């Protein structure tokens, strides 16, 4: 797909992510044993043939930059196009900290102006899904839309979880009739996926207009305000999709990956998901290992009991431990006799001997990075 470019918005610091996002942007949050949230949208773009991609960053972007590097894992280390990372910068005309998504894009207008593709796909960086943008663009063109917004029926979530999403309504022709960002009382259950398609020229025009009026947010100040004056259509997506916007959703998403069907949808069908590789040896199981219904990444050494859990690279689970319904991130060591249930353990944590940590399915306990428990 040579006539589309991609923009990934990773700026938002979701306070709902608590300790997990205090050290990293939500787009850089580890998911599914070896990935970071941004890998999904980035791989989707690459699999859809998009090779000119800009990533706008803001909060704690060190880990994100580290992860993306030159983009070689996504085959984006290109002479023409490739991967561009745009952290905020200072200049004479008063730019600086991005005040919102529209502001972030506006501050990098040069990139948009210099690119040659006719269309642009704007996406948030924290959604977990497998999506073909080529199909979405075809739909956009066929509908004769000005802007197309991907949405999904979110009745597989509790109503209270919908308040974290953009909720929209469509008419019979799929034209969007209403769009509310993070409504307190959602009027429906169609959630915006934060993925938008439009012409590059239109995006530039909308950004200039938005900033000229002193506004900053792409959803609130552009999309919602233009519902009547522009032809904004919805593109219904039916496969698996989760937005990593709260601890609860993060936990739920990782646990859902234990379902082989969902796993297949994400990792096998319709293209691979790429990520930065770490050259770990295969995971090693010793005699005492009892592992059930779990995802285990390379480099783990397992001697204990692991059930319904996701273990990232290089996790060590020693003898006589019990790990149930947990997410354990890279490099964490769990010493003998400890038991963890409903816990999200960040990178390089040491759980010393005989500790008991227990959270609740709806409220998992979080252990921050490099903690010694």
């Amino acid at each position: 797909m040579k006539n589309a470019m991609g923009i990934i918005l990773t700026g938002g610091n979701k306070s709902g992510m608590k300790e997990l996002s205090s050290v990293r942007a939500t787009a850089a949050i580890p998911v599914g044993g070896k990935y970071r949230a941004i890998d999904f949208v980035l791989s989707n773009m690459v699999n859809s043939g998009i090779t000119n991609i800009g990533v706008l960053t803001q909060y704690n972007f060190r880990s994100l930059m580290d992860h993306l590097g030159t983009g070689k894992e996504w085959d984006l280390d290109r002479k023409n196009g490739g991967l561009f990372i745009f952290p905020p910068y200072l200049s004479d005309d008063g730019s600086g900290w991005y005040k919102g998504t529209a502001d972030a894009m506006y501050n990098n207008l040069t990139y948009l102006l210099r690119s040659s593709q006719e269309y642009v796909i704007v996406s948030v960086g924290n959604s977990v899904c497998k999506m073909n943008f080529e199909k979405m663009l075809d739909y956009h063109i066929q509908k004769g839309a000005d802007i197309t917004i991907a949405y999904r029926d979110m009745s597989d979530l509790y109503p209270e979880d919908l308040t974290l999403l953009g909720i929209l309504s469509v008419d019979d022709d799929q034209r969007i009739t209403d769009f509310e960002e993070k409504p307190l009382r959602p009027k429906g259950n169609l959630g915006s996926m934060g993925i938008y398609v439009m012409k590059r020229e239109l995006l530039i025009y909308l950004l200039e207009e938005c900033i000229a009026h002193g506004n900053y947010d792409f959803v609130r100040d552009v999309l919602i305000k233009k519902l009547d004056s522009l032809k904004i259509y919805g593109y219904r997506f039916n496969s698996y999709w989760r937005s990593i916007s709260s601890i609860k959703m993060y936990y739920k998403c990782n646990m859902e990956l234990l379902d082989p069907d969902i796993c297949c949808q994400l990792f096998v069908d319709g293209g691979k998901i790429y990520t930065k590789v770490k050259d770990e040896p295969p995971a090693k199981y010793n005699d005492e290992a009892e592992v059930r219904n779990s995802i285990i990444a390379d480099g783990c050494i397992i001697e204990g009991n692991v059930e319904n859990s996701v273990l990232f690279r290089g996790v060590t689970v020693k003898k006589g431990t019990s790990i149930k319904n947990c997410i354990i991130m890279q490099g964490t060591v769990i010493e003998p006799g400890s038991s963890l249930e409903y816990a999200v353990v960040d990178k390089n944590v040491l759980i010393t001997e005989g500790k008991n940590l227990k959270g609740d399915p709806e409220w998992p306990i979080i252990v921050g990075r490099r903690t010694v428990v």
Partner: protein
Amino acid sequence: MSNTEMIALLLAGGQGSRLGVLTKNIAKPAVSYGGKYRIIDFSLSNCINSGIETVGVLTQYQPLELNAHIGIGKPWDLDRMNGGVTILSPYMKEEVGEWYKGTANAVYQNIHFVDKISPEYVVILSGDHIYKMDYSLMLKEHKKNKADATISVINVSYDEASRLGIMKTDPDGRIIEFEEKPKVPKSTLASMGIYIFTWEVLREYLVKDNEDPNSDNDFGKNIIPSMLNDGKRMFAYQFEGYWRDVGTIEAFWKSNMELIQRVPIFNLFDPTWKIYTPNPIKPAHYIGPKGVVKTSIVSEGCMIYGTVRNSVIFPGVFVDENTVVEDSIVMTNCKIGANSYINKSILGENAIIGDDVKIGVGEVVENELKPAIYNCGITVVGESSYVPDGAELGKNVVIDNFVTTDDYCSLNVPSGKSVFKGGVCD
């Protein structure tokens, strides 16, 4: 080490015929090992970990898989502006094109490659061995001894010694005698096939060796003995640690099994000496609700619904419910059906095993056609081969590569029998 002080030449042209079907379509260095690696990864990783940034890989036998594996050397960080990895295959010359006649001839035919870089030293490696070694320490020793050649040696048992190249050294480590496969070994210091030469000296001997029509053009048989005869300064460099020539089915299987011990004698988890390989683009592996995995190593992209014990499982392997895999090596992307039992077997890449299959059961009987290769009770299923539903395979059975279900004469293949592509029945 300045980046052209020493370069490496990796001899990767060998067939490794004693590995049977495993090396029928690929060179021995390209054989899968240790759950995600190929044998050559160890030498290549040793190079980059030792600070050697220019590596020539000499290929000859079935190089396709090997070339694809090495590519431009990205996984080993050997994609360089200067140096990096270069694949050196036999080529046509003005008058005549010829294959590499022996290890020394292979290097001789690439003298121009080395001359262009003009390093002071060359380390000659073979891509056949499993070990971790810092060649820069060996070079240090070489320089300290002002040696012309340094040969890495390892202490082996007396029995093994008669199958290897054996050195006799003086107390300073200077080599005074070298014998290839001696009937009565005079020492137990065996050559590991790792040589550091001062390039100028080696170059001279390669040219001389090439002019000798009676020479086998081999390092062990010709170059080393003739240097020794001329009284060149040759030293042994003693290596301590894990080193295996995984040249037979049994040695290959054993070395893989050594990785699953509680504290393996060969540590792949060492962060200071990582072994690199192209990473499969697959998700982390999944153990199903009834899955059992014990004393095994399992790689990315696997889905284990059955039981896996004492085994080495490569990426993308699927093991269905009620199936038991024991004491086996299961290579990349194998699929094993339900209610099956796999015992002491090696399943080649992309092999498809049906439901209700038994492999590796019954008496130990040497393979009828190739007793020298398949004799240790291990059954081998070649790459991309099928084992049909309900089949029962004995011990020392060999299934050729690319065998389809039509090639089976009977679902019962007793110990010592073989099944070939084309299905020739008695």
